[in-house]
């Protein structure tokens, strides 16, 4: 059984400041979600509420249909893995992994297999690990938790590219072996895009967009061509660049067939926008509206 997540009118204040303001969010059970947002957008606050690390100032946070706050049977089957892993630095790696056994579904044999595979030395103290190995240890604890809802908050930070690749591969294998709900919070969007089923973009304490990955991939376009021809299309540009007589604009919406034809006839090149670029433009602080 994997967990769904529902947030209803959720606000989280730090002092007078809203970290999250009146957020509604529904995550269906058993999917892999990407959580995107700039630094300080509210990603970690959101995940902390879902994992019951924090209590909302107002509103309801439901996991598996139940209020999650002080709900031990639910919380023990939710894993939130933060970068650095929230470990006791004085413990050995082995003892740290064993701590995971407080979860009912923790798989010790799997954890040890992963430690071997990712070459994390069991006897070393956590404090003696490199940043990369520490991130790997955190990821191992998250995978081996075999939770019904597993959330990785920027856990890839510190991992080098081959290690990240191996981690995503393992995550997908574990997901297919045992369907559950996964949330990946990341900055490296294009790197994880193929693994995701839905994407949630958080911006300034609000949910800016929530849609299928395909909707995002079909969403934007770049148009490059003679400046007056590009202008003549009359599209609302998220961003624009000029080089001599050539103009390039990025638009957020999918182009309809008519616009595509007119663009092609006017010698305008139409290209896709990577999810990363689309995200950068959508969350641009100088941008008004959504």
């Amino acid at each position, binding site marked *: 059984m994997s967990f769904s997540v529902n947030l209803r009118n959720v606000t989280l204040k730090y002092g007078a400041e809203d970290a999250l303001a009146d957020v509604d969010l529904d995550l269906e059970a058993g*999917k*892999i979600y990407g959580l995107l947002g700039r630094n300080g957008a509210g990603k970690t606050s959101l995940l902390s509420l879902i994992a019951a690390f924090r209590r909302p100032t107002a509103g309801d946070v439901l996991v598996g249909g139940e209020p999650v706050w002080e709900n031990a049977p639910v919380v023990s089957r939710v894993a939130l893995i933060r970068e650095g892993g929230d470990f006791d630095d004085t413990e050995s790696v082995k003892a740290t992994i064993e701590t995971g056994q407080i979860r009912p579904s923790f798989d010790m044999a799997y954890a040890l297999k992963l430690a071997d595979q990712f070459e994390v030395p069991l006897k070393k103290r956590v404090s003696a690990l490199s940043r990369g190995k520490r991130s790997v240890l955190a990821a191992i604890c998250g995978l081996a938790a075999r939770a019904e809802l597993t959330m990785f908050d920027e856990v890839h930070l510190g991992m080098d590219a081959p290690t990240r690749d191996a981690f*995503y*591969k393992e995550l*997908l*294998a574990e*997901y*297919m072996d045992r369907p559950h709900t996964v949330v990946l919070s990341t900055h490296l969007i294009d790197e994880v895009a*193929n*693994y*995701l*089923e839905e994407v949630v973009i958080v911006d300034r304490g609000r949910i800016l967009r929530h849609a299928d*990955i*395909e909707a995002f*991939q*079909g969403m934007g376009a770049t148009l490059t061509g003679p400046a007056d021809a590009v202008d003549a299309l009359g599209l609302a540009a998220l961003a624009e660049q000029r080089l001599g007589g050539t103009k390039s604009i990025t638009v957020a919406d999918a182009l309809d067939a008519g616009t595509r034809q007119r663009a*092609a*006839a006017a*010698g305008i090149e139409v*290209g*896709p*926008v990577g999810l990363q670029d689309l995200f950068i433009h959508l969350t641009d602080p100088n941008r008004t509206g959504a």
Partner: protein
Amino acid sequence: MFDDGTPIYRQIADQIKAEILNGSLEPGGKVMSTNQYAAFYQINPATAQKAFRELVDEGVLYKQRGVGMFVADDARDRLAADFRERFFERVLAPLVREARQAGIPLTDIIDYLRDQEGALK
């Protein structure tokens, strides 16, 4: 692969179609499972499933409950007919447009195609 802006599930569907057209997937043959596709291409299994659903809707594949996905008996003929139908719009229309932009008369292209046909014989 997967970088030209087309949704991934469509790219997978197109690839399966290409494999049927070139004969590497036989009519009546079994197609790899959703999870095998997902693991091979490192994509979300729901994405692979979308590709299969589209191909089932188009009658290219059919599902046998509990057994798997199979290539429809008439899939190749159907795809070949479809391909011919879209060839002019997909391949020749852009060619004519580009030739116009470059100032190449269509008669030059026709001559070129005639030469090609001669070379093939």
